């Protein structure tokens, strides 16, 4: 079996070069070096794109913004070093039947979805540790079972928290000499590893958001994360299963292979400009990198696999599928 031809892999682009403008030219989207003399830096067919992430001093021509709206292209704005600033979300015909199905989910439906996602996350956490040679993860196995049997969201959140703590306790063992991970800190990240983890979760959240938007699910209405104004709860929910196996794996790869070193960070634990560019291009490569899909047995890029999870989630919400099948790796 082969993955059907997709356009997902080239559907997300990152523009990091300062002093550039994104414009349209003969039906294509072009990144133009306005401040420098390099002219056209890259161009993409409009129909293929669904997300453009821009960092810092990049601007858009007015015709381009109109085109983005017409073609349903989402623009995400970040600061030069990757802090999320906001998005331009095109008007899109709301497919009423999909939204209706999402809004009509019962508490039990939501709990079922959340259980599948959290159990998937715990499964993937174990798998990542065992791939890295960390043994003795039976507690995680038990917690996975507990997540599957949760009878309410609070219980599920408790189990999730406990599993995260156990897992992060062991994550240190996956890192090469010179790197340590003590505990997960978020605002602000207190060390370099936490900074890379936070950054990667933001990048992943945006991948998931793009997918949810493309398939017209409401990203702000979650199944487990509490809905708070302006917080894309559903994206955070769906992101859970990818955190260990894609995000944390990516971060450990970056430091273990020496792609990022301690020297790449500024005093406040942010990646310095050049290192951040390296990071982004590695992240994009990583999303396009293929692996053998554990359920479908064909080779597929991470980006496409994530979009497929969005589709499966939507099919579960509309009742086309009986349950949500998280992307889980047993080995």
């Amino acid at each position, binding site marked *: 079996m082969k993955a059907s031809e997709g356009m997902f892999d080239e559907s997300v682009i990152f523009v990091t070069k300062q002093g550039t403008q994104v414009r349209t030219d003969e039906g294509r989207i072009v990144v133009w070096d306005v401040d420098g003399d390099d002219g056209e830096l890259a161009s993409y067919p409009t129909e293929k794109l669904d997300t453009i992430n821009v960092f810092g001093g990049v601007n858009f021509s007015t015709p381009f913004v109109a085109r983005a709206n017409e073609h349903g292209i989402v623009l995400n704005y970040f600061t030069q070093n990757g802090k999320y600033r906001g998005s331009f979300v095109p008007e899109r015909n709301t497919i009423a039947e999909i939204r209706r199905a999402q809004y009509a989910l019962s508490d039990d439906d939501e709990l079922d979805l959340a259980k599948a996602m959290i159990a998937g996350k715990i499964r993937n956490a174990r798998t990542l540790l065992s791939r890295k040679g960390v043994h003795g993860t039976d507690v995680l196995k038990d917690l996975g079972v507990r997540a599957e049997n949760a009878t309410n969201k609070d219980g599920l959140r408790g189990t999730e928290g406990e599993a995260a703590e156990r897992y992060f306790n062991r994550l240190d063992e996956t890192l090469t000499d010179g790197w340590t991970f003590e505990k997960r800190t978020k605002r602000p990240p207190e060390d370099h590893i936490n900074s890379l983890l936070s950054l990667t979760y933001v990048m992943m959240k945006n991948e998931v958001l793009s997918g949810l938007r493309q398939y017209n699910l409401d990203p702000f209405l979650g199944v487990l994360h509490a809905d708070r104004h302006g917080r894309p709860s559903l994206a955070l929910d769906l992101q859970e299963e990818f955190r260990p196996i894609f995000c944390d794996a990516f971060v450990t790869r970056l430091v273990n292979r020496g792609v990022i070193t301690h020297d790449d960070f500024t005093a406040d634990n942010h990646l310095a400009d050049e290192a951040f560019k390296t990071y982004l291009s590695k992240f994009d490569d990583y999303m396009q990198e293929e692996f053998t899909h554990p*359920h479908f047995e064909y080779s597929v890029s991470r980006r496409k696999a994530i979009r497929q999870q969005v589709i499966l989630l939507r099919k579960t919400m*509309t009742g086309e599928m009986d349950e949500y099948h998280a992307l889980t790796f047993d080995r």
Partner: protein
Amino acid sequence: MKASFRDELVPVSALNEYVYCPRRFYYQRYQDEIGTPYELVDGRSKHERQSRRGGWVRERYFRSNDLGLHGKIDLVESNDETLTPVERKRAESAEYYPSDEVQLAGYCMLLETALDESVNVGYIYLYSTDQRYAIQITENHRKTVREIVRHIRTMTVDSIPPLTDNPSKCEACSAREYCMPEETAMLEPDKAKGTGFEREERR
């Protein structure tokens, strides 16, 4: 009441979509999820070019409450006072499909209710080969049209049609990426029972 065609007329083009795959039709009808119909876009621009030639009646809209159908016939040829609908088919394919015949039958039936005389022949024209085929509209065609209209009008958002029993259709299907037929069969084998994706129990 959920959206359905129950009290609405069915567009003739829907017959073709439905025959291709009822599930694909469902996605298009309720979920706006059919992918980019490149071929259709292509066909459309060709239509525009052709429509400048003379001698034909073009773009006529017909409707019939009795048939439950409506649609625009983009070309009607008039010869010796008989009128014959022409259905022109998009670029790539060098042959026409049963679904095209059904669509043509729908046009013939609409035309005959409008004229109040029988229309038993229609043409399918293929751009790719520049060939025109005269199709005899049979009682079978008519029955199929009526049945499909009935299916479409009673379709609801809550009952998704099964995967096709002819997986080769999926290869060319623009909804495939969304439909995920093989993947569905692997994840939830129940859903593939009785379709072309049913596979032997794997151990």
